[in-house]
């Protein structure tokens, strides 16, 4: 089974401001208009089929206020930092088949998300395209099980040409062309990640560097054509949540 990087989720208070700021910081452009449920995403291809989804809850004046509180991600993003509250909220790994995804889900004591028939539960694009995916581990609501916060989950995207990493970005001055992720600074230890991935050494299959701090992505280094590597640093959500026990478990 080949496990690879799929994408990084970068939570933002205002995804428009966050993606414009990231563009100025790095020269990496983005797509607009992708959304799922009450979350909007600006997609930043990184090369090599990997991307960042800059995600934010909108409907802020309405649905957001009805969401269960306390809200783990909201509270992390509400923590001020030098990036207007931006936090890495997730790292998602990819596998190549549904069978592999099911195997991982089973190994981690759960299953895979259903292929929901309702398009509202999948990412949609402005042209009407619905990007279906399934992920693992999925634990039935009420099962009492949950994925450890900050550990990556796994995705299967059947439509490879439709992947966000393969879509064009908005043209902008001084755009840089990314060539792929060179390394990732991640919290925790090699041993913890290896156990989660069920491999002898996680850094042998993915370009991890571990810092021993809170689980989650701390930095992503991206190669660019004809230029210096870019390092995108943001704190992970776990770094800003000191007492996680008050939050209900999430998928």
């Amino acid at each position: 089974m080949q496990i690879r990087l799929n994408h990084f989720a970068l939570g933002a208070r205002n995804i428009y401001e966050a993606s414009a700021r990231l563009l100025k910081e790095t020269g990496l452009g983005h797509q607009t208009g992708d959304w799922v449920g009450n979350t909007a995403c600006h997609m930043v291809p990184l090369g090599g089929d990997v991307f960042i989804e800059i995600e934010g809850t909108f409907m802020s004046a309405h649905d957001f206020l009805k969401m269960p509180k306390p809200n783990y991600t909201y509270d992390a993003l509400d923590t001020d930092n030098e990036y207007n509250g931006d936090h890495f909220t997730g790292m998602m790994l990819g596998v190549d088949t549904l069978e592999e995804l099911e195997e991982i889900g089973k190994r981690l004591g759960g299953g895979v998300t259903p292929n929901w028939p309702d398009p509202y539960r999948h990412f949609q694009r402005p042209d009407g395209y619905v990007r279906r995916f399934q992920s693992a581990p999925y634990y039935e609501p009420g099962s009492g099980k949950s994925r450890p916060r900050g550990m990556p989950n796994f995705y299967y995207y059947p439509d490879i040409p439709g992947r966000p990493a393969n879509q064009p970005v908005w043209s902008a001055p001084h755009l840089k062309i990314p060539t792929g992720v060179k390394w990732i600074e991640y919290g925790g230890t090699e041993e913890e990640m290896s156990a989660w991935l069920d491999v002898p050494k996680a850094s042998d299959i993915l370009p991890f560097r571990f810092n021993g701090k809170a689980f989650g992505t701390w930095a992503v280094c991206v190669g660019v054509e004809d230029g210096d590597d870019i390092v995108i640093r943001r704190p992970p959500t776990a770094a800003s949540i000191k007492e996680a026990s008050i939050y209900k478990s999430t998928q």
Partner: protein
Amino acid sequence: MGTINIHINHFSMGARNAFETAARLRNETGLSFWTGEWVRDTSCHMVPLGNGPHGKDAFIEIQCSVDAHAHLKETAPNRRYDALLANTENNGDLWTGLMLGVDSRADLEAVAKRLGGDITPDDSRINPYNHFQRPNGYILGYQGGPRFSGGQRPSKWPADMPGFYYYPDVPNRTSYQQVVPWPHMRTPSGVKWITFGGTNELLSDWMGCNAEEMIPVKFNGKAVGTWEVCVGIEGGADVVIRRNPTALFITDESKYRNSPRPG
């Protein structure tokens, strides 16, 4: 004042979820949109309406707040929020504004002065956060009026009287940008008529001309604001977009008028 050409510039449609609203409006009308424009904590999906004889290259901006954190820190009453929460049709969608256009800054200044106000500054280069921005970095410079001292609109004017705008960059006007392709997409050919609340006397007094002769407007005598927009379609039947106006759901304007936040 009679020499000033006033045209329909755009309509604001407030939404709880601009993404869902834009997709639904397109299913309803065949009119597509483009994405990625924003100003401060507001996102806009833009729906060009074509360049007809009356509604000069007008568009709809479907707007929604995208920053829950900023919203929750607000202390002033938020008129748009309250109205969007109250409306139960079309997932809360409301017409939140009719914006009229003029062809020069001098015209804009004259309109604002006549109404006892001034115009917003031309500060797009030094304060881009206060202006519409696009994903390619373009900043849409514009000026609007009337702006009243201290944000206090004279009480004689209802809250939803249309604003006036001057957009100096014609090729980059919102209505001229490409929409996202979509099956069965229709090509709009301009605004044919709108239904507005109130009376012709009221709007004419505001515009400084006979409103019905200047723009294709019909009046229904109800709450002030846009009620309907009829758009011509190339090779097809006209499209009529009906939504409730904001004022329908705001029974007491006083707390918003006394707020420093613009209505």
